């Protein structure tokens, strides 16, 4: 539940003509495998609802999919669906829609809960639109004069403040405010508007074979902690790269060079 009061407290000092598109996918419950509102996409919608007056919630897929109703139950009057067959690739259809509508911000989850779940959609969209991607956003604090102030989620509850000029694609982290409760009545009544879209078969996807994951034995973490505080720290710490570096106040070309070198060094590219 997201109590009304709480939302008002977060003063986003926003320009109300802000135009946001939240992309939603069909989630999958980790225990039952049943379709549902995806965790991160739900948070994206929540953020979108709190930020913008012009907020479009967009899905690429089957307009009859019941899980769309649980997004609508958050109080959406309508959900737009780019009507695609089960074998189609979502990216070209989304690109076409976004190029036509040119919103200020596109919100997505970090990765989908079903399908390829590669987390690539936001990057592919940004590449085609030629927009920046901001990954793992915890909150959008304000948007003023065409610049958004964001908080990125870092491990252990840390945040990094960031200013990004519009337009951009943002992926929403689990640290963002939880999606409000979905109510059955409004969910049923909402309009699902089906839109025609370019359909291209997802070649990569159709080459894949899906199989149930087998649980693999876990390596036990040996903790050499002496005090309770150390044990607690060891148990809660997220692995953190030690050689991290923040690149700022240097020309973009040099920053790109640094990243390129790192990727070479880590043998990501060769």
């Amino acid at each position, binding site marked *: *539940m997201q109590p009304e009061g709480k939302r008002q407290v977060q003063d986003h000092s926003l320009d109300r003509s802000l135009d946001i598109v939240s992309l939603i996918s069909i989630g999958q*419950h980790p*225990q*039952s495998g*049943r379709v*549902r509102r995806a965790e991160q996409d739900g948070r994206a919608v929540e953020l979108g609802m709190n930020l913008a007056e012009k907020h479009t919630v967009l899905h690429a897929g089957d307009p009859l999919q019941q899980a769309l109703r649980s997004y609508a*139950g*958050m*109080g959406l009057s309508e959900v737009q669906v780019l009507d695609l067959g089960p074998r189609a690739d979502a990216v070209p259809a989304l690109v076409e829609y976004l190029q036509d509508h040119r919103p200020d911000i596109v919100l997505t989850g970090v990765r989908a809960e079903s399908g390829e779940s590669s987390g690539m959609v936001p990057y592919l969209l940004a590449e085609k639109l030629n927009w920046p991607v901001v990954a793992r956003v915890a909150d959008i604090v304000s948007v003023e004069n065409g610049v958004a102030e964001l908080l990125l989620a870092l491990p252990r509850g840390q945040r990094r403040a960031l200013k990004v000029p519009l337009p951009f694609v943002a992926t929403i982290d689990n640290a963002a405010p939880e999606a*409000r*409760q*979905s*109510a*059955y*009545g*409004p969910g*049923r*009544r909402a309009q699902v508007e089906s839109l025609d879209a370019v359909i291209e078969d997802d070649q990569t996807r159709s080459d894949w074979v899906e199989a149930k994951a087998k649980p693999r034995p876990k390596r036990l973490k040996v903790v050499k902690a002496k005090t309770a505080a150390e044990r607690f720290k060891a148990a809660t710490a997220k692995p953190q790269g030690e050689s991290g570096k923040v690149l700022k106040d240097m020309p973009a070309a040099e920053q790109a060079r640094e990243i390129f070198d790192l990727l070479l060094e880590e043998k990501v590219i060769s």
Partner: protein
Amino acid sequence: MVLDWLPSVLIAATLLLAVVGAVRRISLWRAGQPDQVDLIAGLMAMPKRYLHDLHDVVERDKYMSKTHAATGGGFVLSIALILLVHLAGIDSQILAWALLFALALMFVGAIFVLKRRMDPPSRISKGAWMRLPKSLLAFSSAFIILTLPAAGILPEGTGGWVLTLILSAVILLGLGEMLFGMTWGGPMKHAFAGALHLAFHRRQERFGGGRSTGLKPVDLTQNGQTLDILGVSKPKDFKWNQLLGFDACVQCGKCEAMCPAFAAGQPLNPKKLIQDMVVGLAGGTDAKYAGSPYPGKDVGNAKGGPDQIITNGLVDPETLWSCTTCRACVEECPMMIEHVDAIVDMRRFLTMEKGDTPNKGAEVLDNIIATDNPNGYSPASRVNWAADQNLPLMSDVKQADVLFWVSDGAFDMRSQRILRAFVKLMKAANVDVAILGDEELDSGDVARRLGDDAAFQSLAKRNLEILSQYSFKTIVTTDPHAYHCLRNEYGDFGSDALEGVDVLHHTTFLNQLVQSGALKLEAFSGGTVTYHDPCYLGRYNGEYEAPRELLRSLGIEVAEMERSGFRSRCCGGGGGAPITDIPGERRIADMRMEDVNSTGAELVAVGCQQCTAMLEGVVEPRPEVKDIAEILVDQLIEEVH
């Protein structure tokens, strides 16, 4: 007699005004939604319901029942005779004497009402109610004097016009309260609305001992465009006879005195809630309310009207979420008002329309929808608890004498001890039993009480679908909540899966086994034992005896708590209350444990996993808490083959 026409004119005038008031009041009720009631049959059955059902409840308070019989009976008789003697002017000494007798009866009754009102308990409302005994006395004494001449005791015209004037003034007072007030919202409204409520009650079957609730399935079928608002958002969304029921409240506060949430200092008082519903149906504020408030909330700020959203200014949602649905109020209400159904109706709106179920509510509902259990465990792990139990699955055997409905206790380690104990007892008695295993789903109890009737209906229908594939004579469960759903609520879905099937609680079933000699038990030698009646077993299903008989069969003499049987105090675990978790000053479970302690018991026997969890949640030192199945299994004499 000079001015002797005055009293009859007054009688006629107040009668007329009363009729106008009645029409107006009825139109207020008719603002509600239509409901199927047989008006004629209801009216015909009304006297019997008054003398039987209502009187049974009032009779629990002997003082009040005698007082009411004298006052109410005297009044009804008097009015009938007054019409004959003073309005129709029938000159008969016999009638006049009869009238004198009726008035005297009423007078004596009124004296006792007055006496009770001298030092009233905190549960009853003051305000306008405090003047009622005086009005009763005024009415009866004035008419006694007026009738004396007709009875031939005093000569006609005694006292002259001065007395007539004084008498007329007193009569006006009395008549005003008794007739005018009856239909214009005075305390006597309870007689008018109460009588009609008995006739047109929303839950007619309750008068035959029916175990239903008024929770009819919400109509969800109009998929898409024209779906109405679900649940009750405004007073006029209630059924008309629910509104009528609210109007019958006498503000006796019996419900308040029994309400565990009120006692725990949570913001709920069932009496105030019903009075707020009256404010809602008539329009206005609660400024005139003269009873205990919702704990922690001031009186005088609530506003409402038939067309205004209840949770916008009339009742705080917290009030609705504090209720444990224990039904102690319903059990106690002399006017047969159904508080719990009204509360759930309003919760339906909050959950299904506003998406505003507090605290863990949303998470639990999401889990129930996605995994068919409230904690979001994998549905494929439901049967894991029984890995070592060697229990046949229905999907394998297709039929058995007994189907054991395991309930969500399957996922909880503490509850599993109860399940195992029960299985062991059944095996010892050679019961032909099977379970559904992973095919079983949550019963829907929590979803329904939290107002998500869509989730409840989905679970109920899917459960019935599974049940209909197998054949069994008896279905038995250790969970009174599942028991109530299976027995009383699944019938609304047009399935014959449970037709001709005995739905039993495990204590009833075990009692049958013990009484038939199928289980050999040795006497219990521990200390003092008390028994806690689960609300959904006792008040909801009327099973008070089987658990006690089982304990007796172990040689246990139950040290009863003051609040036991139909007056049992809730453990605090029902109605999703631990999930919505509305803060109060005390915890209901702690209060219940105090009840247990006051009996000096070392062991409290229960018949519900939820009660077990709530009572075991009370900090130690405290008496031990065990399900009856667990107590029995320890005394089981196992035959060696």
